[in-house]
């Protein structure tokens, strides 16, 4: 007999939701609901030999497991967010039993209602900006060596000068790209109900060799999506390559941290 836990995907605001759910969650487990008044928690039963705290530490090092779990979690959240205000829960949140989930819904009802009021009728869009072609990387130190190398200088000294010039040029381009990114973010944020900056993705993860200079999330009223699109269009062709993702469930805009002790500020400005 394997010990089990209750994996929590999301909480929605739906009055009177009961009955079976036609969704498959993490590790192929069926999703079911736990209902308290007008709050519904979507959960599934998971084995603790994979989802217990210690196994989780190891599982999180396993990319295949992370991807499979993240996509399953996302699939459930996506389906829910199509039909009801949905507060996604952080990946891999596991309770020891249903009673703890009911307790959460009872005690945090007001907090959830605030969350729903913030996200209802709004969707999250992502905009990533890459420094454009030609700025994708600093020039190699010897790029122009043949035509500009001052004859009188020692190779070592000449190298140092080139190196410094290269670094200055790199910093300069950084500043320009950062300033453009800032402008893009502020312009988009002005159309958004809320905005948030995620940390730029490592080129190895983004799959793009260019510098990512903006990884923003924008919470947009569904009625304002046209305006958002129009504003985004005006920002194109200004030295940054802008990539849009979404719509997302409002993952980035669930600002309530029910854990009193720690606050997630890492990705906030």
């Amino acid at each position: 007999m394997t010990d089990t836990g209750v994996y929590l995907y999301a909480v929605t605001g739906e009055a009177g939701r009961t009955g079976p759910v036609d969704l498959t969650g993490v590790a192929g487990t069926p999703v079911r609901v736990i209902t308290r008044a007008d709050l519904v928690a979507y959960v599934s039963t998971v084995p603790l030999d994979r989802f217990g705290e210690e196994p989780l530490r190891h599982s999180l090092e396993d990319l295949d497991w992370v991807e499979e779990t993240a996509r399953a979690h996302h699939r459930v959240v996506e389906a829910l967010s199509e039909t009801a205000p949905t507060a996604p829960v952080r990946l891999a949140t596991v309770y020891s039993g249903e009673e703890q989930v009911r307790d959460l819904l009872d005690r945090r009802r007001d907090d959830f209602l605030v969350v729903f009021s913030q996200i209802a009728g709004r969707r999250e869009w992502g905009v990533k900006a890459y420094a454009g072609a030609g700025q994708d990387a600093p020039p190699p130190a010897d790029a122009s060596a043949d035509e500009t190398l001052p004859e009188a200088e020692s190779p070592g000294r000449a190298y140092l000068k080139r190196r410094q010039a290269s670094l200055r040029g790199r910093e300069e381009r950084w500043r320009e790209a950062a300033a453009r990114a800032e402008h893009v973010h502020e312009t988009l944020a002005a159309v958004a109900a809320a905005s948030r900056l995620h940390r730029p993705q490592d080129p190895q993860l983004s799959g793009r060799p260019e510098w990512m200079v903006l990884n923003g999330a924008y919470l947009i009223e569904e009625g304002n999506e046209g305006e958002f699109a129009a504003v985004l269009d005006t920002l194109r062709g200004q030295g940054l390559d802008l990539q849009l993702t979404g719509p997302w469930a409002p993952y980035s805009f669930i600002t309530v941290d029910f854990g009193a002790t720690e606050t997630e500020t890492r990705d906030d400005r």
Partner: protein
Amino acid sequence: MTADRAPDGASDRVTGRATGRAIDGAIGRTPGRMPERSRAAPRGAALAAEGRLPPERVALVDLLDRLLAGGVVVSGDLVLSIADIDLVRISLRALIMSVRGSETTDGGDWDEPPLR
């Protein structure tokens, strides 16, 4: 040879492609998304169409940005807590290890991004 970094063009682009492949390969299994909402305004629909291209593929790294740094945090309420695990660090390390493992170029000479 005085270059203190890999020659730019070639190896960087190779790195990018290889990375793209690795990530793409991981993305391919995405389940389809729900159909677009019909009530979206025409402009919004165009927005959705662009954002969803290709519609059924969400980049894992974009997803992890949100799943690991967003969402309700219920650490204080958890009996079975994983709140003290740094999800972001652990999972991104797994991602990076995976990508690096699939490459022969080191691709490690990247500058810090300007916005944090």
